[in-house]
């Protein structure tokens, strides 16, 4: 008769946590930080279609590190959760807190009951009416929720990079300053000499407080180049969607910001709720998940699954 080996619960949990941490640490980091006009997300991601940062709802953004198929699944669940809630009640009843709770339940349950924990770490952020109302939640593989203030880094060397962001971050940074800080920190992730990351290699999105409804917006390479090149102090147009020189709209929606602003002035109430402005999302071509992404990326022990 074979008796199964006894493994103490402590050991079991530790093994699972180590496994998840190892998987997450292989990925590239994501930096999330508040600036004067909202919340910015930045990461190094050469892919145009496989996003690590996405829109969940009007004022809620999502960022993840870890295994693509796992966090993509969670992202879709989040969009469904938010849309169903907003449809059942009202758009204003969809909150980052509720979403973070839902994610925490999923992550926690999988960590305890499934044979393998989810190798992901998430940030759910909501931009409020004022900077004080902004919410940033960080969720780890075991379902722990942390309420972060101002900035958070996750992924490989999160602690070390988080310290660097903490040293440089101020609440009243402009978008350009915040992004320069984020990119500098991302570039210093390898322990050697700091690298300069090209704008084409970056995935950057913002939740812009001043937008009427859908606050999420991806920054194009061109906009990003301009923002990163600016010297401190000279900062035209950030946080002001109407100003053409500054933060331009995604390429596919050339006149969107002016559009949104005009509509905001002319009919504030019902129209604003009814579904204006698709400017939040940039058409990104077909996003066929996981499969073909994996082959291009460096492979982990799971045999060809994408690791960042």
């Amino acid at each position, binding site marked *: 008769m074979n008796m199964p080996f006894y493994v103490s619960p402590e050991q079991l949990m530790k093994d699972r946590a180590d496994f998840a941490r190892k998987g997450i640490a292989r990925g590239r980091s994501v930096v999330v930080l508040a600036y004067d006009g909202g919340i910015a997300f930045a990461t190094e991601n050469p892919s145009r279609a496989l996003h690590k940062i996405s829109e969940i709802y009007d004022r809620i953004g999502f960022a993840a590190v870890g295994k693509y198929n796992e966090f993509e699944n969670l992202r879709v669940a989040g969009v469904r959760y938010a849309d169903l809630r907003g449809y059942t009640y009202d758009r204003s009843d969809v909150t980052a807190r509720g979403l973070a709770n839902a994610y925490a339940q999923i992550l926690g349950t999988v960590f305890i009951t499934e044979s393998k924990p989810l190798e992901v770490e998430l940030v759910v952020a909501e931009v409020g009416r004022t900077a004080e109302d902004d919410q940033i939640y960080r969720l780890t593989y075991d379902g722990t929720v942390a309420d972060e203030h101002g900035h958070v880094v996750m992924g490989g060397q999160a602690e070390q990079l988080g310290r660097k962001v903490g040293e440089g971050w101020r609440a009243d940074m402009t978008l350009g300053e915040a992004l320069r800080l984020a990119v500098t920190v991302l570039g210093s992730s390898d322990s050697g000499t700091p690298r300069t990351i090209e704008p084409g290699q970056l995935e950057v999105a913002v939740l812009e407080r001043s937008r009427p409804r859908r606050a999420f917006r991806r920054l194009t390479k061109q906009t990003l180049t301009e923002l990163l090149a600016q010297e401190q102090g000279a900062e035209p147009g950030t946080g002001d969607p109407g100003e053409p020189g500054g933060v331009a709209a995604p390429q596919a929606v050339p006149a969107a910001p002016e559009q949104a602003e005009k509509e905001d002035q002319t009919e504030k109430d019902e129209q604003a709720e009814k579904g204006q402005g698709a400017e939040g999302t940039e058409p990104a071509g077909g*996003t066929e998940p996981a499969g073909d992404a994996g082959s291009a990326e460096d492979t982990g022990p799971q045999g060809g699954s994408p690791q960042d």
Partner: protein
Amino acid sequence: MDGFGGGPGGRGQGRLPDAFLRPGSSSFVEFLAEHAPDRLPGAVGAGPGGSAGTAGVGSGQGGYHHELAPHATTIVAVAFDGEAGGVVMAGDRRATAGPMIASRSIEKVFPADEYSAVGIAGAAGIGIELVKLYQLELEHYEKIEGSLLSLEGKANRLATMLRGNLPMAMQGLTVVPLFAGYDLERGEGRIFSYDPTGGCYEEREHHAVGSGSLFARGAMKKLWRRDLDAAGAVAVAVEALYDAADDDSATGGPDTVRRIFPVVATVTADGYSRLPGDDVAAVAERIAAERRERGSLA
């Protein structure tokens, strides 16, 4: 950094049902039909494909329902080429319940997404609910897929959703939408009409739906020209609504006392934009003045 394992308690709603995590389509309606069919508009406790149980009953009682439920009336759409092509959609502001005016200021033209507009005629409650779900459907697709549906895709999606309302339509609660949008691939404005059973037909140049549509179509036939620009198309749409209101009791004309004017929206390469109320008022007043001058009885 205050961590709390598993999230705060409070109104614990437990774990999300598996349906949320199941890989599936990018359609919100399909998700709703699977996970919460009771929340679909017009659902009488029926899932997808399930019979509502009441279909076909009382199909001859349309008149009764007209008094029961407010009905939205006339919607017009006008395509234009000009230097930048596009389409104008306009709707009057009246809803009727039988012989009564249920609302003087209802809005029946909505943005479906950034590049399309949808207007509804027929049972107002169901129609507005349908539009709300349709807007969400397009936004949901956009968020999940990261790209916009093609214009035909959007038009067909609306047809499918309308088909789901067939049991209600059989009971007299018909919804007839009109869909118009800017085709980003072709670079032109296009119009799609529907029948209550979900048939989808592409229209050329202009179209109208609702109780006043006969008169509006007649007007547009005379007014539409190939060289219309955006402003010209707006004028045609407003005048067609004026004619519809002239002869159809269920269509509201410009209300100069309460300053209620039609909802007019244009969709071009720059996206959906609703015309400010004052601009519509100016167009409506100009048309009224022209007619006064002509001194016609019509």
